[in-house]
């Protein structure tokens, strides 16, 4: 919804999905699969780069990663239309930036193409947010916005939480806005 196919600046609808080692990364993999299906069968233009990071922070024996482009900012700017940040989610502790995660988060701070963060901009503290961290263009809050979303300054903020049963919504006083039709995401009012 935020980046419809006809609006992409590059000839090929390329998207880099950067997947971290935990649940946020897994969500990124599902997202990548569905993004691929939105382009249609056997479209030769599609180039999807998934950079699954295995053995991130604290792992003494990191496994070799697959499809590893080095985190060169210029490479990312040139090859892709957008980056999906699925590195760290709400479960990550603030400041968890050791190992390969630190390198990619640093690179993401400097890319000039739009970043879409899943749930929490990676590297941000889930409550306090982050100054000097990555600045995503689009945030997709999962279930409900996290406290750090108050610091989100990007263009569009979506909530993907239609699956939550009513009693859970009530119990946690989530008060989500109504979802249009059969959509599974709803855009919140832009912060600026």
């Amino acid at each position: 919804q935020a980046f419809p196919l006809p609006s992409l600046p590059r000839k090929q609808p390329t998207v880099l999905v950067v997947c971290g080692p935990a649940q946020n990364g897994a969500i990124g993999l599902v997202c990548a699969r569905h993004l691929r299906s939105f382009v249609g069968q056997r479209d030769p233009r599609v180039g999807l780069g998934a950079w699954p990071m295995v053995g991130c922070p604290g792992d003494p024996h990191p496994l070799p990663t697959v499809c590893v482009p080095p985190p060169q900012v210029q490479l990312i700017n040139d090859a892709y239309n957008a980056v999906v940040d699925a590195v760290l989610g709400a479960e990550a502790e603030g400041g968890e930036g050791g190992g390969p995660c630190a390198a990619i988060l640093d690179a993401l701070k400097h890319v000039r193409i739009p970043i879409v963060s899943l749930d929490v901009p990676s590297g941000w503290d889930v409550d306090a947010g982050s100054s000097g961290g990555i600045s995503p263009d689009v945030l997709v809050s999962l279930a409900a916005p996290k406290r750090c979303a108050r610091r989100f300054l990007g263009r569009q903020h979506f909530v993907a939480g239609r699956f939550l049963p009513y009693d859970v919504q009530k119990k946690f006083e989530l008060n989500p806005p109504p979802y249009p039709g059969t959509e599974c995401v709803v855009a919140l009012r832009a912060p600026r």
Partner: protein
Amino acid sequence: QEEAQAIDQELFTEYKFSVDQLMELAGLSCATAIAKAYPPSSFTTSQPTVLVVCGPGNNGGDGLVCARHLKMFGYEPTVYYPKRPSKPLFEGLTTQCQKMDIPFLPEFPAEAALIDELYGLVVDAIFGFSFKGAVREPFGSILSTLERITVPIASIDIPSGWDVEKGKADGLQPDMLISLTAPKKAATHFTGRYHFLGGRFVPPALQEKYALNLPPYPKTDCVLQLT
């Protein structure tokens, strides 16, 4: 039928999908298709009430997922689920429905007229593409009753009781068919108003391997209206 089973098997063994994943996407497709064809405003009953009849296998599971999403879309579903497999998948789906305040009927409405009065739509999630052989009770009587109702029926994947390839001229005549993954041979005998394709999860390579020739889904929609 064999091809449909082969595709399913490949999705599980080669592509490593879990049954839960595909069932969730299938059930969501069904609810979405129903919402497009029968919006809540089109119901003549005072509330958009829907009866979801779930069979003993995966088709029933699809029905449970569908019921849950229908509730989220603003419908008032009620489920009849007489034969429940004691497997965590189905127990979980049942719990999710119950906790969303979706009632489960203790017995099937005795008369077709009662169904017509109480519900604006019936979802047939009894038998799917693996169905073979004779219909066992209580589903025989259930299907006889459903054959006499006048409110529309939406069948998931195969109209229940039909031969998966040849259909059944004197069987259920649903108003809507939601074919999952790809239409089955029996769909050529379908004469209802709405035929939707759902289950937008077949990878391009698999579509090619089985020459499914599926038309493209619109944008990010999880269903495609065929007729």
